[in-house]
């Protein structure tokens, strides 16, 4: 019994650390496209353009929103795989 519980605990810890790693990567991208490209580096990026949009302005008013959607769905799919790997899916 005690051994089983220990095993279950280890599995949970490994699952949680995988989750935190994934979160770290995705939240960094979240920060880079919005606060980075849309605000901090906006002026510099504005020298490039995408169609009639200055690039920084595009990130601030269009691009960051598209990336946000992709981030959530990537997380949904990756988490599904991680949960299955540890047998913790619902």
């Amino acid at each position, binding site marked *: 019994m005690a051994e089983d519980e220990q095993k279950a605990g280890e599995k949970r810890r490994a*699952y949680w650390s995988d989750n935190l790693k994934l979160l770290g990567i995705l939240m960094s991208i979240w920060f880079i496209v919005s*606060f980075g490209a849309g605000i901090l580096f906006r002026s510099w990026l504005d020298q490039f353009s995408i169609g009639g949009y200055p690039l920084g302005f595009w990130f601030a008013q269009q691009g*960051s929103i*598209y990336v946000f959607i992709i981030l959530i769905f990537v997380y949904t799919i990756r988490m599904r795989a991680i*949960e299955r790997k540890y047998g913790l899916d619902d």
Partner: protein
Amino acid sequence: MTTQTLIYIFVIASFVLYIGIAIWARATSTREFYVAGGGVNPIVNGMATAADWMSAASFISMAGLIAFLGYDGSVYLMGWTGGYVMLALLLAPYLRKFGQYTVPDFIGARYYSKAARVVAVICLIFVSFTYIAGQMRGVGIVFSRFLDVPITLGVVIGMSIVFFYAVLGGMKGITYTQVAQYCVLIFAYLVPAFFISFLITGNPIPQLGLGSTVNDGSGLYVLQKLDQSLVDMGFGAYTHGSKSMIDVFCITAALMIGTAGLPHVIVRFFTVPKASDARKSAGWALVFIALLYTTAPAVGAFARLNFVESVHQTEYSKAPAWFKNWERNDLIAWRDKNDDGKMQLAKGDAFAGKPEFTEKDGKNGERILSNDAADDSANEVYVDRDIMVLANPEIAGLPGWVIALVAAGGLAAALSTAAGLLLVISSSISHDLLKQTFRPKITEKGELLAARLAATAAIFVAGYLGIYPPGWVAQVVAFAFGLAAASLFPAIFMGIFSKRMNREGAIAGMLTGLIFTFLYIGYFKLWAPAGTNIADNWLFGISPEGIGVIGMLLNFGIAITVAKFTAAPPPEVEKLIDNIRVPRQS
């Protein structure tokens, strides 16, 4: 058929639809009343969340704000969408796994404390009432402009509709009416946007149109042309903005984090069957929201361009019909400063404050104002930003049914958000204050009745605030997001990601964030002498709109420090955290 008749038909038809759904989806238990029985399909819930989230402000005001703020308007676009990434990744699945009914439920259980629960209820009620007053005002504006009904009667009609489906149906009724309301509002937003984008650029997709060239043979891109005309008139360039970088950064962050901490949004994720569905549902919610939020900047830019081209240097006697229509509704005003009979736009105010019309007409037929002059600026035209979306179909000369659609869409946006807010207010009273704190022996039936009575009372308060809007309503929208960011978000976040965070730390943190943010916003928005709400006086140059971020950092700092010097949470709480972190039921 006249436009007026069409508007009546569209609005009444949409109301009949909402009431029909409410009768079909009545709630019969507290579980159905609070979380729609917990069996809502994630995509359906995503759609309901989008309607819940997109308020009268998103539908009516946002594009107009962006039209006049240009790049600075990005704070709303990123701020009100980026929060969904935080919700989906950091909060929603864990709160769903926790599996109770309200946000204070989680705070009370995780911090093993009735005091923490009550503090959360206070934050929630303050945030939600600030928000709901704005919705009722939106209902009033749409009614008075489009249906020629006095604002008071408009608000009363709106209240009765919400009363019907929120009180009868609870979360279940609200969920399915919100789905219908989303369809109405998104259709109403996109149709005129397609038309206008096509008229100006030849490309009907607004997101692409905004990056295309103008249809007038000049070969200039829309944004280039807009920058050029505005700079010529003495404004800053549309794509540059005028707020400082730190302020843009902090406002965006405060809106994002505030969004993730808004109780009426969070509870929507309590209605799906499983934790993994909560993630999926947040993704779909953002898809549905993005449809409007990526269209809004295009609508804003097109509207500004249209406005500038049809008004600047035009003789008043030749002004388009919509200009005079909205002047009659007090939302546009013109003062001929240089007495040339033409309307000039420029940087600065046409006159001090909101327009106060006299009964007299000027020599060009314009309405004469009694406001003090602002002669330091050559600007002659006052325009209320809210009309940009409402007037767009008229400005672009679109058919009457499009105008009717916009009226029904504005009402759908306001009513759906109001209903969601009413529900969290009523459940925090009947469930958190009565059942969990003061009257634990109340029966299921009694609790359901209490929830319905609380919803009824909340509707009356909201209606009162809509009919007699206190002057501070428009001033304190920043409160809702700032307070949610500074008080609720950190407590929930640490409750999931830190096993060491305890009762003492969480309560101290919430109170610090709440009080600091409240005082800062209150000082600059309400109590400080006029004219002192300027960057030089702000802490680190951060405006009251963005200060929630500092409040949040203080919350984290105080909570972690206090937790370090007080006892760790009991072992049951550690078990609770282990349990909510994994999706599988054990």
